[in-house]
């Protein structure tokens, strides 16, 4: 089962929830996938060992100038201005290419060959406690994160429990991470900014038809504003984490709350039990439905 931890607003504590949830599940099939590939941070807390890394590339075109007759068909099909005729030469702009292969398909002279552009890397390792972490790291200067996120997600084994740490926002990177999840856990911050961005994410999840629940982080800032919203939308609040300087300081040092604060461990275990219950129920309902 795939549980994606998301939030519209950045910095609400997505990564904190993901890594501490992973560390409080007493099972040996827990895997974590950090899809915040622009700024991945889960590894700081999980501390994986024996890391293997793989560069990830996408196709971009390269024109064989010997064969090219400058007919312009590739320029015409390309929606992204990544291949154009400039002063009797075909120029490619690899960083703008979306790898649709349209230019390759349309070229009458078979002059478009395959080249590649590095998006970044996918790393994987296991920590001393057996938590398996896979994370993507976007190359600095690369604009397109969704294809790298999709590569990270390709490594999910849906048999176990996969926790996915999604990037902030509600546009393509967040959507790519949330697609085809079994459940979305939204980490909400009870502030006006937090509420505004939470509502945007809930709307996106309705479009994606992913069941959704909320956890409130730093629950004492403006009590009530998230509760009120959740009630109106009929969304369950699965847990509330209080703010404390101690918790903030533990997180700032890259440590796990569940190891340092027993009361936090209890809250995370409770959260997992509720998630497990919800997902087992929905699975059974699905099977009956069939």
């Amino acid at each position: 089962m795939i549980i994606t931890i998301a939030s519209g607003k950045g910095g609400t504590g997505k990564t904190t929830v993901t890594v501490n949830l992973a560390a409080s599940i007493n099972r040996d099939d827990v895997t974590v996938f950090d899809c915040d590939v622009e700024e991945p941070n889960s590894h700081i807390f999980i501390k994986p060992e024996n890391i293997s890394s793989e560069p990830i590339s996408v196709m971009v075109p390269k024109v064989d100038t010997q064969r090219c007759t400058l007919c312009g068909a590739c320029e015409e099909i390309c929606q992204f201005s990544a291949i154009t005729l400039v002063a009797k030469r075909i120029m490619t702009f690899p960083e703008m290419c979306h790898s649709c292969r349209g230019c390759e398909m349309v070229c009458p002279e078979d002059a478009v060959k395959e080249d590649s552009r590095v998006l970044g890397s996918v790393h994987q390792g296991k920590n001393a406690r057996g938590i398996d972490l896979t994370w993507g790291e976007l190359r600095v200067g690369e604009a397109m994160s969704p294809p790298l996120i999709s590569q990270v997600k390709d490594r999910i084994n849906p048999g176990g429990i996969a926790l996915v740490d999604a990037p902030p926002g509600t546009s393509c990177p967040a959507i790519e991470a949330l697609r085809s999840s079994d459940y979305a856990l939204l980490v909400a911050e009870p502030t006006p900014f937090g509420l505004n961005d939470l509502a945007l994410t809930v709307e996106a999840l309705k479009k994606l038809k992913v069941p959704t629940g909320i956890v409130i982080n730093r629950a004492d800032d403006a009590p009530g504003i998230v509760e009120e919203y959740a009630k109106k939308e009929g969304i369950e609040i699965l847990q509330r984490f209080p703010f404390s300087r101690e918790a903030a300081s533990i997180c700032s040092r890259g440590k796990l709350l569940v190891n340092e604060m027993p009361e936090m461990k209890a809250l995370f275990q409770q959260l997992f039990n509720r998630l497990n219950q919800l997902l087992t129920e929905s699975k059974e309902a699905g099977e009956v439905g069939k």
Partner: protein
Amino acid sequence: MKELTVISGKGGTGKTSVTASFATLADNRIVVDADVDAANLFLTLEHKTLENSYFKGGSKACIDKDACIECGDCRERCQFDAISEDFIIDPIACEGCGVCAYFCPEKAIAFEQQVCGEKFVSQTPWGPMIHARLGIAEENSGLLVSQLRQEARELAKDKKIPLIITDGPPGIGCPVIAAVTNADALLIVTEPTLSGLHDMERVKALADQMNIPTMLCINKADLNPETAGRIKNFAEDNGIHFVGEIPFDREVIDAMKASQSLVQFSQGAAAKAVKSIWKEVQQFMGTTLERIM
């Protein structure tokens, strides 16, 4: 005319609170909210919207069931698995490349530009604000950011406004690249955590690739003075101009709840720090920048 973009790498470091304060402190400026998929500036700055227009992003394909002969050509060509076995295109998966439509033997696929959001020009008591709302689950945030900045530049020229302050999105991907390209200076707002440090290093690498002079401030610096120290050292070693620290202060949230910028709402420690940071930033934008350029 000069352009300052405020970014953070990591989300939630207080970037928008800092930008909103700058936007009320500056004498004559335009402010742009480039965090288009989680725009928050409009919640803080009192404004009246003067103009709105649609944002047209990329195109999407749609199959006309009556004309389709189910030959399967489009499914084979689509690199994004966007076309189902029963020939329905998933608009969320469609990348908008148009390849299916180009090759369909029956011309059964419509390929049209989509409205992906809305753009606004508003007036605040401190000058114009240019902002937007990206549609839910829409793409092309980078293009939208470029358009907002372009509109801001035209308005600045028209009204002879000397400064554009842009609130950038988190991360380092396409909307961030669009928000920092050709800016005169960047201000990174970070927090004293290992995550904040790690993310700030990546944002700095991006700034270096683009050759943009960079400033740094640390928000909630007192939550972890040791990491704050490491961040300052990093700044010093990497040619980042350090402009100050902001202490943790509950009035930051209280200002947000009151729909006001921090410096409008509060006289407290954080507000004082932001005012002094703004002075430093102005000085850097004025004298130091001229010396470098």
